[in-house]
């Protein structure tokens, strides 16, 4: 009996020491959760940052609603959301927010024989499709703006997000701006959709579009490219039909006056400009002002400082527009608000 106890004791000692050694190695990784909109670029940045500094960035793409909830619950070091919080919400949660990149929400369709950019849509037509008022692809409203394109006589399968999504927020904000009837549905990260199927995350919507013929949905541009989906052209505020592209997002972003926006609250939908993409959006990071763990707060700010300095090319490769230099300066000045328990800035 004594002998077997001795063996058990030795075994548990080794197990405990192994546990201690392994946990010590991962203490410096930073964790974040939220929007699926910027996930492709955050993943690329995390990979490059880890190669350079050895510190990993663990990002869970669960949707903007999830990001807001998790940062309020303090389960992650930072939250990510495409829906910016208002100044009142930021004060209530003791949070600061700052934008990282801008991108475009594009409508995608699955129609046999139609190539990317062959179909044109206006904001009003898109809103009426999502309201369930336009139900077939060869409806007169769609045919009128797509002369010469062979539209099939099939029903439109509408796809939206089933989870709390900042992409939905920006999409419904745009539809609300261009179509008065959309006020019945409202603007939020989750709404009561009159028609359609729900997919979880940008990834889920992209998968459903790929699998369902005659479907239409909205995803961030990087997802449309990576999944080889057929995107459509949109009519912007100036009445011109534009293709989604880095230049179109940049044209919309050039109108943004970040200095005047309290808490950087700015929504880039429906911006003027002949080449602007009408559904451009910025994505934001949420961080607690008073850090319980100052080292984590500092590590997060160091990561984003690196991203602003060296991550521009990676963002541009994925067709995200990086923040202009003057805005980066404003953002990094705002980081002085992030303090530890004694009031000292962590970065």
């Amino acid at each position, binding site marked *: 009996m004594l002998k077997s106890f001795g063996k058990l004791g030795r075994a548990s000692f080794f197990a405990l020491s192994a546990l201690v050694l392994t946990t010590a190695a991962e203490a410096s990784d930073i964790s974040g959760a939220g929007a699926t909109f910027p996930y492709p670029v955050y993943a690329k940045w995390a990979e490059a940052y880890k190669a350079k500094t050895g510190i990993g960035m663990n990002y869970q793409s669960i949707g903007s609603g999830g990001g807001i909830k998790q940062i309020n619950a303090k389960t992650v070091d930072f939250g990510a959301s495409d829906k910016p919080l208002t100044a009142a919400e930021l004060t209530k949660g003791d949070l600061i927010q700052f934008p990282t990149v801008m991108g475009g929400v594009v409508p995608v369709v699955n129609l046999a024989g139609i190539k990317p950019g062959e179909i044109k849509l206006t904001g009003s037509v898109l809103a009426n499709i999502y309201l369930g008022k336009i139900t077939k692809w060869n409806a007169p409203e769609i045919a009128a703006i797509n002369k010469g394109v062979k539209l099939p006589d099939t029903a439109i399968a509408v796809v939206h997000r089933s989870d*709390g999504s900042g992409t939905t927020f920006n999409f419904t904000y745009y539809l609300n701006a261009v179509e008065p009837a959309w006020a019945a549905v409202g603007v939020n990260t989750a709404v009561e959709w009159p028609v359609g199927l729900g997919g979880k995350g940008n990834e889920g919507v992209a998968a459903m579009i790929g699998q369902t013929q005659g479907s239409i949905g909205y995803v961030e541009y990087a997802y449309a490219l990576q999944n080889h989906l057929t995107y459509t052209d949109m009519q912007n505020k100036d009445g011109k039909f534009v293709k989604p592209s880095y230049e179109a997002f940049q044209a919309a972003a050039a109108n943004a006056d970040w200095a005047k926006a309290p808490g950087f609250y700015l929504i880039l939908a429906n911006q003027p400009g002949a080449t602007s993409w009408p559904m451009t959006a910025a994505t934001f990071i949420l961080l607690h002002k008073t850090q319980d763990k100052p080292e984590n707060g500092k590590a997060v700010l160091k990561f984003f400082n690196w991203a602003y300095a060296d991550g521009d090319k990676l963002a541009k490769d994925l067709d995200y527009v990086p923040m202009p230099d003057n805005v980066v300066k404003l953002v990094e000045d705002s980081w002085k608000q992030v303090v530890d328990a004694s009031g000292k800035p962590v970065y």
Partner: protein
Amino acid sequence: MALIDQAEESRRRRIRNGRLADIFFRWMTWGFTALVLVMLGGVIVVLVQGAAPALKLFGFDFLITAKWNPVTDEYGALVPLVGTLATSAVAMLVGVPASFAVAFFLTELCPYKLRTPLSTAVELLAAVPSIIYGIWGLFVAAPFFQTTIEPALAAWLGPIPLIGQLFSGVPIGIGVLLAGLILGLMILPFMTAVMRDVFETVPAVLRESAYGLGATRWEVVWKVVLPYCRTGVVGAVMLGLGRALGETMAVTFVIGNAHRLPKSLFDPATTISAALANEFTEAVSDTYTSALIALGLVLFLLTFIVLAAGRRLLLRAEVAKTGGGK
């Protein structure tokens, strides 16, 4: 003399250790049972506490309202509840006859050499993770359903007066029908395994006497085997139904996540577990979170009612067998 004392001493010590072991064993088993009951009680308390704000706000109407609006914070459980019941009904309609047929084949018709490999193959279906069923459903089955099966069903069954309504509507592949079929496929291995085991407990003498009297294979199973193992079969069906009611990941992929009442089997819908899986981590307002927990409470009560009804059926079957006689 000393030797006999030693033997006596060691005998007494063995008895004492035995008694101590008994007491320890009894406390341990009591403890674990109590732990299970405490955990069950804890789950009920948490569900009721979490659901209380929403139930106070909406009242009993929560169960019959079809609204689900996160913008105006108005919620109702009718759509997820109907979706759960509809997909489980389709799963049962498809799964029970199929598993009965497989169990029947494995015990009566299958050549002896093939019995073990086929039984193992059916049980391997149970080892497939449920999310794989969901992925297979979305990527393989859904396009096939949209292009081939659903239009065929709409053409054959659509014109029939009453049930035709169930097979009309726009075929999009995913929806109540596909979710129900995938659920049926998932619960098939469990029900088959239990039914097969239960069919095999029938004494050989009963079966052989029936064959000896000239009964066909079908008559033997329907009139001799099934009545004998009624309780086991009902138990298997209840097991399958319990699994179908609560299944989450497979259903989330293929149900379409639409908070609207489905008017036909081709329509998308949502189930309670799919709604919870999609929306719980992101419910930003307190009412939203409370409404979701209230949905969980509804599912808990539904499963409880189903299991209680199953037990009641079994109890009546027992009484009929022993008390009433045949």
